[in-house]
């Protein structure tokens, strides 16, 4: 992760150091903000059942279906909020929701 990626100010940043005009120069830095803690239910991906159809990929509101080289690799639990849409659309029951912390 380059410096460009990082969060640019924190809650104690003095006014002299805050970004002029509220500009944020590190585009896409929201990925450093973790929303995984929002989850009540957790999607569990069963690699065996997965047919790599990719239907779960575009539906995810949190860009949390990890795909590499056209292959489903898993779920980004840093950001997944546990909405369950991926599980609902999976034609092969390869994703199942279970309560967080089970």
């Amino acid at each position, binding site marked *: 992760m380059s410096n460009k990626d990082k969060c640019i100010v924190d809650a104690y940043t003095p006014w002299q150091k805050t970004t002029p005009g509220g500009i*944020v120069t590190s585009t896409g830095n929201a990925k450093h903000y973790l929303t995984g803690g929002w989850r009540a239910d957790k999607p569990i991906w069963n690699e065996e059942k997965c047919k790599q159809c990719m239907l779960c990929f575009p539906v995810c509101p949190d860009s949390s279906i990890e795909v590499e080289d056209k292959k489903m690799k898993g779920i980004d639990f840093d950001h997944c909020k546990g909405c369950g849409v991926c599980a609902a659309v999976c034609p092969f029951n390869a994703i199942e929701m279970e309560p967080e912390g089970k």
Partner: protein
Amino acid sequence: MAYNLKETTLKPERLTGGHRMCAGCGAPPVVRTVLRALKEEDKAVIGAATGCLEVSTFLYPYTAWEDSFIHSAFENAAVTVAGAEAAYNALKRKGKIDDTYKFIAFAGDGGTYDIGLQSLSGAMERGHDMVYVAYDNGAYMNTGIQRSSATPKYADTSTSPAGKAVPGKEQFRKDLTKIMVAHGIPYVAQSAPLKNFKDLYEKSEKAIYTKGPAFLNVIAPCPRGWRYETNKLMELSELAVDTCFWPLFEVENGKYTLNYMPKKKRPISDWLEAQGRFKHIAKKPEVVEEIQAEVDRRWEELLKLSGVEA
């Protein structure tokens, strides 16, 4: 090249996780798909109206957008993006920029159908080379689910509450897509997040790479406002399309094309019953009939415009 969902996964994600939209929100899948339609080498300036999407994706100091992004107010997403496009044209002409930029505005139905309609109409009429995407969830969700002119008739919202005297919103929704067609712009389409997203992806691609203004109206289910379980996002979207409440079509230089004909047109009650906001009328057949009649009327009109036999 024909649409291939797997191939599109190779493109970089342009809306990152870490935004604060609700779990199961319909807007981010719409945004992600529109942005995936961008060529990888093309840069973009994206604008958004004040609304759920904006406040959740650009909460200082975090931006979920990998591209340049601007928000300034509620009613001006169209002209805001148009202003950036004007800057691009000037700087390009003066040789100060080499890259290719594309210009995309996102706004909810409140920011599009209502407070932002003037700005949208102006920008489309002036012919800026941009795409305006309305993610229509049928109410002002950001401020707490107030009715908009896109809210379906009889929906229970916080400013059209279903009471003893008034059964929810009293008017049918404004047909904004038609108003946009009347602007005579090169490309207008109605789409939905559906199945493998082919429809939305292809329309986005056309919209972005058609020179001149383009307008996409995309239904975006809202679990909170519509009152359904978060995992039913795609089901709700599909129901809207299969009941013909939200037909998929495009209008290219004035020519209508119907993009999806349901194998079996489902009754509107299927869609209504899936949502808490219609709970108060679901068991009132005369009301459901009235809604059905209006859905049918609009659907048949669309069939006629598209030259399709019913």
